[in-house]
Every structure is written in C-alpha cells, then in structure tokens.
C-alpha cells in the first residue's frame, strides 16, 4: 500500500477507535439512566427514589391480580424472581397483560414503596410460535411435571429451543 494511503488509513482507524472509546465511556457513566425501568430488587433495596416519576418492570406474579368491581382499579405484584413490588393502577390494561407476563409500569413510588402507576405497558418477549405449538408445549410441560424425579431433564424455558413433543403437532 502507498505510504500516503497507509497514513490516511491510520487516521481513519484513529477516528473510529477514539469516537468508540468516547461514546463507550459516556454510556458507561450514564448506564443507570439508560435503563428503562427499575427491577423489584432495586426498589426493595431502596435504590429507586420515592416521589419522582419512574418505571418499574417485572413479571406479574400469579394470583396477585386484584380488580375493583366498580372501577378500572387494579392492583398486582411484579417480580424479578428475587423480590416483588405492588403496583396500583386505574385505567385500561394492554391486551397482552396477564399473570406470568412481563410489564413495565410508569408511576411514582409512595412511602410504602407501592408504585402508583399512571401507565402500564406490556413487555413482549422474544418467543414467537403458532398456538398449536404453544398448546403442545404446555401439555408436554405438564407431563414432565408429573414425571418429575424419574430422570427427566429439567423443563426448558420457552426461550430455549423446543422440546421434541412439539413435533407431533407441527404441521
């Protein structure tokens, strides 16, 4: 390569590397602000501030949903597997809101660390499959639960491949 071109190539690489380092440090410094929501464990530990608008995210705990009969009020708990936080909301929930589904709620933490939400969004996961497959997997999961202890492998999550049972239903 011509020495002049080599020189220019070095400049080009320098620009890319230097700007990457600068942006990398910048985002590292701001990493807490880049997160869209606080997890329940951060809220329980007192990492999340009270009385300011923030978002909390997690999975809706099974059996925790309470609805009012005479209004759109709904209360439920969200968990990250370690801790859980109560969320209270009055309004229309997204279609995908359900027990065991992930949500992100915007609101203010009160003194009891209950989130008074003004907006609840459903957080869809990366799993896409036809209804028959989902049904088949649910059945397979239940069968495996029943056989627990008889050397069956641990149930794989939806995001980890597909168990072989699904094949019978896959048209």
């Amino acid at each position, binding site marked *: 390569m011509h020495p002049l*071109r080599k020189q*220019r*190539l070095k*400049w*080009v690489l320098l*620009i*890319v590397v230097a*700007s*990457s380092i600068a*942006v*990398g440090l910048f*985002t590292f410094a701001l*990493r807490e602000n*880049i*997160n*869209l*929501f606080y*997890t329940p464990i951060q809220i329980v530990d007192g990492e999340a501030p009270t009385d300011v608008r923030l978002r909390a*995210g997690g999975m809706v705990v099974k059996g925790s949903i309470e609805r009012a009969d005479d209004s759109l009020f709904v209360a439920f708990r969200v968990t990250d597997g370690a801790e859980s936080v109560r969320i209270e909301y009055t309004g229309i*929930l*997204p*279609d*995908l809101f359900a027990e065991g589904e992930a949500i*992100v709620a915007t609101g203010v933490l009160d003194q009891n660390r209950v989130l008074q939400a003004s*907006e*609840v*969004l*459903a*957080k*869809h*996961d*990366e*799993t*896409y*499959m*036809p*209804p*028959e*497959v*989902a*049904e088949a997997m649910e059945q397979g999961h239940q069968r495996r639960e029943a056989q627990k202890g008889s050397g069956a492998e641990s149930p794989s999550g*939806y*995001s*980890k*491949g*597909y168990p072989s049972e699904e094949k019978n239903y*896959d048209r």
Partner: protein
Amino acid sequence: MAWQWFHQWGSPRWFYQRSGAWLPWLAVLAALFLAVGSVWGLALAPADFKQGNSYRIIYLHVPASFLALAGYYLMAIAGAIGLIWKMKLAFTAMRCAATVGAALTFVALFTGAVWGKPTWGTYWVWDARITSMLVLLFLYLGVIALYQAFDRQELASKAAALLALVGTVNVPIIYKSVDWWYTLHQPASLKITGDSTLHSSMLQPLLVMIVGFYLFYAVALLLSMRAEVLAREANSSWVRALVTAPQSRERG
C-alpha cells in the same frame, strides 16, 4: 497487479457499464424473493399464540432494521475508502447509501411503532433500542445534510465521510442495547449462534424476506449510484456519447 480488481472501481464508466449488466438479474431476484416471502409470511405462516396476526409486521420490521444497520457499515466503509484512496465512486456509494439507509431506518421505526401500539400499549417509548435507532436515523440524515451543505464536492464528501465514520459506534450499541440495558423492546428472536426463539414455520419466510431485502437494497443502491454517476460525469465524453446514442446504452 493484485490491486487491479480494486482500482477499476475508480472508473465511473466501468461501474456504469457493469452495474447495467447486473441490475436486471438483481431486480428479478429481489422481486422473486420479496413476493415469495410476503405471501408466505403474511398469508401462509401461522398466527402467533399471543399476538395473533399483528406479529406479521416482523416480516417488514426485522429485514428493514437489518439492512438499516448493515447499510450503515456499508456507508461508513465506502466513506473510509473514499478518504484513503480518494476514490470518487466510493463517495458516491456513501452518499447514495445514506438515502437508502435513512429510508429503511424510517421503515423500521414506523413499523415498530405500528406494532407497539397493540402489543405494548404505546407507539413510542424512550428505551435504549428505540432511542439508539432514532439516533441512527439522525446520523443518516446528518450525512445527507452535511454533504449538501458544502459547495465543493471534495470537501462535502470528506466531511460527510468523517461523520459516517464517527457514527459507526452507534451500530453495535443498537444491536446489543437489548442485552446491555433494561428495555421495553424484546431481545433478538433471530440468533446468529444458538436456536432462534422464532418457530421454524415463522422463521423460514423471515429468512426469505431478509434475502429479498438484501437484494432490494443492492438494486436501490445501484440505481441511485448510477443516477449520481451520470450527474457527476455529465460533461465527460462517455456520458455525452450515451445521451446522443441511447440505443447503444447496454452495450456501452
């Protein structure tokens, strides 16, 4: 000698003739893949167990996002080649890739918003993925604007190439944002290593659409570059010959 294949790209005339020969093939292939992928994905693939039919936006959203990111690298590399080898055609490629990339980024953001309303409950949220994708759109528009801001083409090309190079840092940020931070946007379903979390009956049409978008991108870029080459070389003898004898166009 080894560099000859590379240096012939420096000739706009060579490029114009060769790209004219490739275009029909690329266009037919692109149309074929997009037609098969659309019918397969939008009509024949099964509905999703949670989202129903609204998930089908994936067949536009994912390929457009893919090409918006890959196209940025193409633009930045073209800019680097232009800076290092002073190759005009590389700057032309950079300028044209900016337009196509901006359009695809807009498609990705728009389809994402349309899908977000029924799925998440909102059109827009300022999470890391969506915000960094918006920054990508601004980078593309910035390259176009910077290029237009200078009267002297050489200066315009250099300035735009520098911006394109600096912006490359955003591409891995977009790609990894869903893994590095808590976002509303889900992580990638399509995995380069490991199993995709998209069922195979939905994945196959998506792969067809992605190939179709790559081909479409090539067609759009070449068409745009050919127009730009003609405009730049308007005073050269070969373009004049082309205009005065249009029937010999394909043979050059």
